[in-house]
């Protein structure tokens, strides 16, 4: 069993353990969960440091690291041949960042759930199940395996929102569930189609191997997704249709405008730790999926659709930011700001320049820390007074100076203050998008300028919020009662916040920490995609 598999299945083991521990010892659950997450974090950090940055991965199996491949399902389907699914996992530049991010955010989420006392057994075992699924998604190299992890991710989230959420939790959970399911059901069709189009060049059998799907030579002539591209479905080229379907599935996760409306509801209703996980990692599954699946398997279509993807990115940036400006609920504001910030990811990916693509990856990691931090901060006041309407607070700066300092840092880091990670991410996404017209002609330059306006708007809504909630004379809706309950951040909360501030700073000051890991993969992906012309 490789290190990678240990990383993936450790939480599953812990979840089983939690199920076995009787409820009388329920205080143990959180320690167990925190312990496992901490071990995972160490493991992930070890893998991060020992990752060989010269190996590109992407479509070449020999440059993947920590690879493990075992036969999993062998089913004889009679006339259809035999169904072969492998347990096939490995790490390249695109996944290594997310492994670390996942371990970190999961740990933070466990610490953020310290005060959960409603059915802790269920909560923590679901949390750990989710942990396993997300880890799996980021390393699966077999489409079937990827799909299984992808779907397994959905279940615990549904329950975590639907049971431990706020007042309209069931509505939000169902909405989230149906939205995502809608995306993934069609993904399943494409997956099956790909299976029958691609053969393993060694054995000659059909295969779910993602890497084989990335090589045009492995497609059977005349198969539905063959690279010649003459197969049509409903009057549309089959490859284009498949690309669109996959794109929509991942775009819902990202989320893009107009497929984003599950996000504000899910965030607002979800308990704090789940918001942290949602924003911190799950949105990244969308971006990761686009890179790993959409772009790598359908590079020809990706090139043709770059303009549209870039446009969607710009629209998401601006639309999300403008919506955030109109919010009165702090959590909803942060949710819309996520939509806006994730728009940069699309813009960067669409540019297909090293700067843009690296910027997009960096943005995902950076947004991982920062949005987790933002939601955690929102959770802090919500925990205390069960209210988070912006207008119900004023002048918190005098009462809660440390809290205000953390909020200010998180806000300024998110709006792209140099020194913090988001600055590097957004600046290079913009530069890359701008560069695209000269390098490959994929995006017009005005898109970069449009994205830049998003940076301005994000400053507007964050600063306005600071002004309204934290500065000025103290005035609270709940009066003295709130005043007594609104204590400054405590030790546990500081323990979570400080490392995130440090990470955001560290990545902002030393971007090479991330760029060096992904550089080879980014270049190799660009070569793969632009080679499809």
């Amino acid at each position, binding site marked *: 069993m490789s290190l990678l598999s240990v990383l993936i299945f450790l939480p599953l083991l812990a979840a089983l353990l939690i199920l076995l521990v009787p409820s009388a010892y329920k205080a143990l659950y959180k320690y167990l969960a925190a312990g496992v997450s901490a071990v995972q974090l160490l493991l992930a950090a070890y893998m991060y440091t020992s990752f060989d940055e010269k190996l590109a991965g992407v479509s070449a199996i020999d440059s993947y690291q920590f690879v493990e491949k075992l036969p999993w399902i062998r089913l004889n389907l009679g006339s259809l041949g035999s169904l072969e699914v492998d347990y096939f996992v490995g790490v390249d530049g695109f996944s290594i960042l997310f492994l670390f991010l996942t371990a970190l955010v999961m740990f933070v989420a466990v610490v953020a759930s310290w005060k959960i006392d409603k059915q802790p057994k269920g909560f923590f075992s679901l949390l750990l199940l989710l942990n396993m699924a997300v880890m799996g998604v980021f390393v699966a190299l077999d489409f079937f395996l990827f799909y299984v992890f992808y*779907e397994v991710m959905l279940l615990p989230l549904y329950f975590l929102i639907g049971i431990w959420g706020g007042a309209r939790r069931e509505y939000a959970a169902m909405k989230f569930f149906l939205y995502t399911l809608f995306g993934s059901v069609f993904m399943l069709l494409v997956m099956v189609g790909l299976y029958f189009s691609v053969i393993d060049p060694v054995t000659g059998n059909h295969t779910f191997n993602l890497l084989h799907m990335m090589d045009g030579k492995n497609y059977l002539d005349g198969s539905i997704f063959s690279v010649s591209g003459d197969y049509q479905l409903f009057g549309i080229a089959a490859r284009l249709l498949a690309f669109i379907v996959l794109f929509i599935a991942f775009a819902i996760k990202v989320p893009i405008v107009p497929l984003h409306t599950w996000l504000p509801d899910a965030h607002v209703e979800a308990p704090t730790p789940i918001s942290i996980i949602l924003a911190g990692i799950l949105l990244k599954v969308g971006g990761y999926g686009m890179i790993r699946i959409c772009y790598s398997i359908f590079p020809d279509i990706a090139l043709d659709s770059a303009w549209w993807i870039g446009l969607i990115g710009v629209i998401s940036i601006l639309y999300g930011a403008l*919506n955030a400006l109109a919010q009165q609920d702090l959590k909803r504001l942060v949710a819309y700001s996520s939509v806006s910030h994730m728009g940069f990811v699309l813009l960067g990916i669409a540019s297909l320049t090293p700067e843009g693509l690296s910027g997009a990856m960096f943005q995902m990691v950076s947004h991982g820390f920062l949005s987790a931090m933002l939601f955690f901060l929102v959770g802090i006041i919500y925990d205390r007074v069960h209210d988070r309407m912006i207008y119900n607070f004023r002048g918190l700066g005098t009462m809660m100076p440390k809290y205000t300092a953390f909020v200010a840092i998180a806000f300024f880091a998110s709006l792209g203050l140099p020194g913090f990670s988001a600055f590097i991410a957004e*600046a290079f996404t913009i530069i890359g998008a701008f560069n695209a017209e000269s390098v490959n002609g994929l995006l017009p330059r005005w898109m970069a300028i449009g994205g830049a306006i998003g*940076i301005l708007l994000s*400053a507007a809504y964050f600063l306005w919020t600071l*002004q309204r909630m934290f500065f*000025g004379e103290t005035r609270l809706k709940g009066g003295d009662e709130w005043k007594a309950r609104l204590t400054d951040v405590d030790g546990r909360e500081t323990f979570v916040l400080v490392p995130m501030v440090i990470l955001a700073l560290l990545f902002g000051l030393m971007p*090479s920490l991330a760029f060096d890991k992904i550089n080879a993969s980014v270049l190799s992906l660009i070569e793969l995609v632009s080679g499809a012309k």
Partner: protein
Amino acid sequence: MDQLSQISTPVLAALIVLCAPLISFGLSAIAGKRLRSGIPATVAIAISLLAAIFIFATVWNGQQVHQQTSWFRIGEHSFKAGILLNNLSALLLLLVCAIALPVHVYSMVYMKGDYGIHRYWLYLSLFCFAMLGLVMADSLLLMYIGWELVGFASYLLIGFWFTRPAAIKANKKAFLINRIGDLGFLIGIAIIYTQFQTLDLVALFGDHGMVREAFNDGVEWRYAQHAMPAFWLTIAGAAFFLGAMAKSAQFPFHIWLPDAMEGPTSVSSLIHAATMVAAGVFMLVRISPLFDAQILLLIGAIGAFTALMAATIALTQQDIKKILAFSTISQLGFMMVAIGIGQYGVAIFHLVTHAFFKCLLFLSAGAVIHEMQHVKETLKLELDPQDIRNMGGLRRYMPHTFRLTLVAALALAGLPLTAGYLSKDAILIFAFEWAEWQSAWWKFIPVSLLVTSALTAFYIARLVFKVFYGKPRISAIGQGTNYLHEAPRGMLLPMLFLGLCSLFPLFSYNPLLFEDTWIIKGFELPETLERVNIYHTVVPAAVNGLAIVMIFIAWRWYAQGKYPQGSLRGRLYEFSAAQWYLNVMYEKGIVKPLLKVSKMLYAFDRTIVDGLVDTGAGTVRWFANTAQWLDRALVDGLVNGVGKAAVFAGGVLRGSRKGKIQYYLFSMFLVLLIVLFVGLKIFSP
């Protein structure tokens, strides 16, 4: 760390300059409320000053020093971080430290006893670090970082008294307006990077830099294999200028600076008068080879207009700091004109002289405000300590402050023997000479500058006379007990230092001829200008003649109290007093519509985008319910199996029903299985 051994001494000194305030910042950040003393910050900036003096002595008119180290790589491009020391940055480093140190010393007295004093030193050190970093940065990316960080420090300091609503509105405004400029800067960077694949200042703008070597025939702008339509060069210039306009408060982005006066006065003197607001001018000089003729004309025109506009506003303001703020805007306009006419050395010269006398004016204003505040508190009066209508006759109580203010005021008005005389004359003379070579229409630039300098003399004379001459406006002050005192020594000494620096000897042995100043000689002069002798005598005479007339009028009106009552309070007066109604226009033209759009978009998001989703879900649910009803009423009992399935499907789609979670799971897998099956059927060969 093999690079460490190769660091040259000036670079090491530059690192000391940079790190001293950073360490002080770190100390303050860690210690928090426990560190209320300003000594660490002051010591830090003193160390920076010493190192800066050393750098200046080594680098000025000597070899340019440039060292860098690899920072990070993206794709095949490597981004470096480094330090670039040449005449421009060495001078600016020295200037920033030389202004910051007196301001620190002054602040120790001025800010004494303030509740949040620990934050004050924290922010101030951050500012110094960012400003010094901006000056010595060797690449556009690093410059941009310093650029934004000074804006951030300025945000923190404007909002230092964060319980005051005006202060937190002002700092938000300042940051947002500066953000608009930052976008320009960022877009400029993107254009440069696209064209030249590097952001290194030396490689780009050096003597044989890429920008100079690039080919441009008006249609195509080409360097090596990279080409863009030529208009992008103009756009790049405009984008960087946009950045400079916001930072250096040029029309129409000047509106943040007057509001920024909500910060402590010591901060206004350092950041919003002497250093940060001049960063735009510095940046334009740093990248000057980039500008083509159109952009230079634009810079000149905007600068001249801003200078005039701000001067007209300063005429009627009543808040002592607002007058000085508009004066700063106006003087920055002068510097912009100098850049627009290609006289970069002169622009920097005026930047330096202005830094000293404007900083001094602010510190004097601070001393006065301090005393007025004191009077207000002891006499328990309801008055605005910054309103010059409440002052008057102060020269008897604060003679030293008065004398120093006078020196600074004369320098601002540009009268002989002061440093301001030299730099302002230089700009005016060059502007007239430059206009000779332009079409007649462009004469408006030097002429409007001349008018502006007359207005300048008037408004600063008005300030001095209203504050220091006449009788005290508060009746209690004149009688018996002495409520007003001279500023304490801790404040006067730094002011004295600045006062000395506002006089000519620091810059030239010849008090009347700017051409002998060493700063201008330190920068290469453009060759295109031909010396037109007549301007070198007529212009100074005109400037000074006008100034003296204006000062005389102001003396009659404000010192002797012979103000022509009523006759001047017309529309123009209102227009000026209301700051040309620009704030109102911004509020009504931009802020309100933007908020409205955002509200409308949110409504759209809720009702249309989300509404569609909900309607879709509702429709499905209706079908499911119908199916269930049909199932119950008609089919049930006949085809049990089918009925069960429909119930499950209904369960999935019906939405919120407690306790049905296992159905959801089951039906989810059912759906997946069906789809898988269908897929197998369709795709199997």
